């Protein structure tokens, strides 16, 4: 049984201007212990898909539809509210982009970590604090005793992200979902945090989903990769295949825009144009506006994911075997 099963997931938000179609017909699976990167630009629906998996989207404005939405066998679509809390943090944990905004500013780090333990385990408070301390040591937190008695505003971004990782992993979840975990951090700290996440994944054998817009981040930490654009999956493959032989024109353009690939060339290669309007997504390929290879058919017909070999699928009418 796969750890994550998402089948035909669509998410839309009601807004004053109409329905914002953030995710359209996305399917993906993750086996136990595997790692997956989801890459795409802002608004491509990568975070929303996983927030939808954990049912963390606001119920008043978000509509979530899927033929299958399972996390470790639990049907997240029909899971009652009180049981959802038992899945979150225990089966799947999330870490977010901005560690400074991820903690309640009024509670000490120790309180916020122990309450996570106490929410899922029937242990005494001192036992929970012991676990917190050993977890902080495991994430290589400098001076863990001081960190425990600190308030969030007294710690640096890097330390807070370590604390956040400790909080996410303290209940030994089966999967860690990291939503741009290094975007708000200094470059040197970014590398340390990625290293830490990678090491902990190896150690614990948990599954990992890394959401990012930074191809460098996925190259270092995950095996498989999903490229999203305009709320849809464009390409699904291994990291190795993506870097070696990207098939989708969007994936090719994305790789070409990584700086420093061609020596001496100063200017950043960019993909011209803008992402499609999620209020009125095009009937055809969402990338056709910006695609060099697009023709009339791409404007009208929505491409479906086609398999090319065991580990490679691409949604493009122009890519033929």
């Amino acid at each position, binding site marked *: 049984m796969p750890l994550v099963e998402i089948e035909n997931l669509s998410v839309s938000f009601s807004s004053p201007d109409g329905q914002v179609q953030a995710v359209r017909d996305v399917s993906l699976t993750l086996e136990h212990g595997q790692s997956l990167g989801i890459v795409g630009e802002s608004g491509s629906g990568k975070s929303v898909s996983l927030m939808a998996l954990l049912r*963390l989207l606001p119920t008043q404005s978000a509509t979530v539809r899927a033929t299958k939405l399972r996390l470790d066998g639990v049907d997240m679509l029909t899971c009652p509210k009180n049981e959802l809390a038992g899945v979150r943090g225990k089966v799947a*944990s999330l870490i977010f982009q901005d560690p400074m905004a991820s903690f309640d500013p*009024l509670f000490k780090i120790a309180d916020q970590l122990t309450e*996570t333990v106490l929410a899922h385990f029937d242990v005494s408070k001192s036992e929970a604090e012991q676990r917190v301390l050993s977890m902080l040591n495991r994430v290589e937190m400098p001076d863990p005793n001081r960190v425990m008695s600190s308030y969030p505003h007294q710690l640096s971004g890097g330390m807070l992200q370590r604390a*956040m990782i400790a909080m996410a992993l303290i209940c030994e979840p089966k999967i860690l979902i990291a939503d741009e975990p290094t975007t708000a951090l200094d470059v040197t700290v970014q590398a340390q945090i990625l290293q830490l996440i990678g090491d902990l994944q190896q150690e614990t054998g948990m599954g990992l989903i890394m959401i990012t817009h930074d191809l460098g981040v996925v190259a270092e930490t995950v095996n498989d990769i999903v490229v999203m654009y305009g709320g849809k999956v464009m390409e699904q493959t291994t990291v190795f295949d993506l870097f070696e032989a990207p098939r989708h024109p969007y994936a090719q353009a994305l790789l070409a825009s990584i700086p420093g690939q061609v020596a001496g060339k100063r200017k950043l290669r960019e993909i011209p144009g803008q992402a499609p309007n999620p209020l009125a997504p095009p009937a055809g390929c969402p990338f056709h506006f910006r695609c060099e290879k697009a023709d009339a058919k791409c404007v009208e017909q929505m491409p479906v994911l086609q398999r090319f070999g065991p580990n490679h699928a691409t949604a493009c009418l122009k890519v033929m075997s």
Partner: protein
Amino acid sequence: MIGYIVRRLLSISVTFVVVSILVFVMMHAIPGGPFDATEMPVSEAVRAKIMAQYGLDQPLYMQYLKYMWGVLHFDFGVPFQSPGETVIELLSRAWIPSLVLGGAGVLIGAPLGIILGLCAALNRNSWIDYLASALATLGLTIPVFVISMLLILVFAVWLGWLPASGWGSPESWILPIIAYAAIPLATYARYTRSAMLDTLNKPFVTVLRAKGLSERDVIFKHVLRNSAIPMVTVFLPMFIGTATGSIFVEAMFRVPGLGAYFVSSIESRDYPLEMALVLIITLMFCVAYFLADIAYALLNPRIRLGGK
């Protein structure tokens, strides 16, 4: 924290002195005086004697210093309009109805407003949210004397359940208390709702849910406490504002409270009473803001402990 308290106390003292000087000067700048010929047709010699008796013949700064010296010894002088008692005696008599009605109004209105705002924020765009918004808008836009008149009309005139005015029996307190409660209820419903929604939109609330806390813990342990911080700064000053009486409510319900003396002390140039009222209320507001700041700091570790 101690440095913070000392700084706040210093700024309160400065505020207090500035307000006292301004009011004293403005009070005397108004043309006319308490013993003018129109008020008191007596000979010039008698008038001069009365003026000397009350120290009104001295230069203004001497009068100010003399009065403030008395204030430091809790002597606010003798009210011209009621020379048989001291200002302190008059105020302690007149303040009780205002304190009882205004205090009860806030203590009833504020919790109801908080509960209403809470329910509204937690059930956004539901009927209770619309009810809370409607009540908040009505409470803040309809003048309190219109509310008072409506209350009298419905409950005293049409239904005949409650007396229309007076201070004699506790039944007569009910309508003015409701009138007094309207503004705290409306203000608090609005404040609570917006403070709650503000907090609910913070990323850390998503983290709390994502780590598996029950919705009850998320709301009551974390969201409420974060939302309380902007609210404590409003509560105490509002309490003082209401407990010092409302000229309108007291006039509508014929309550013998403090409100009437605000007007009469200015009209009759009752300098000692006027000064005393302004100084005491200024002091109460200063203390209220001071306590609110302390509560704010106690609730908020970023201020309590300093830092970035």
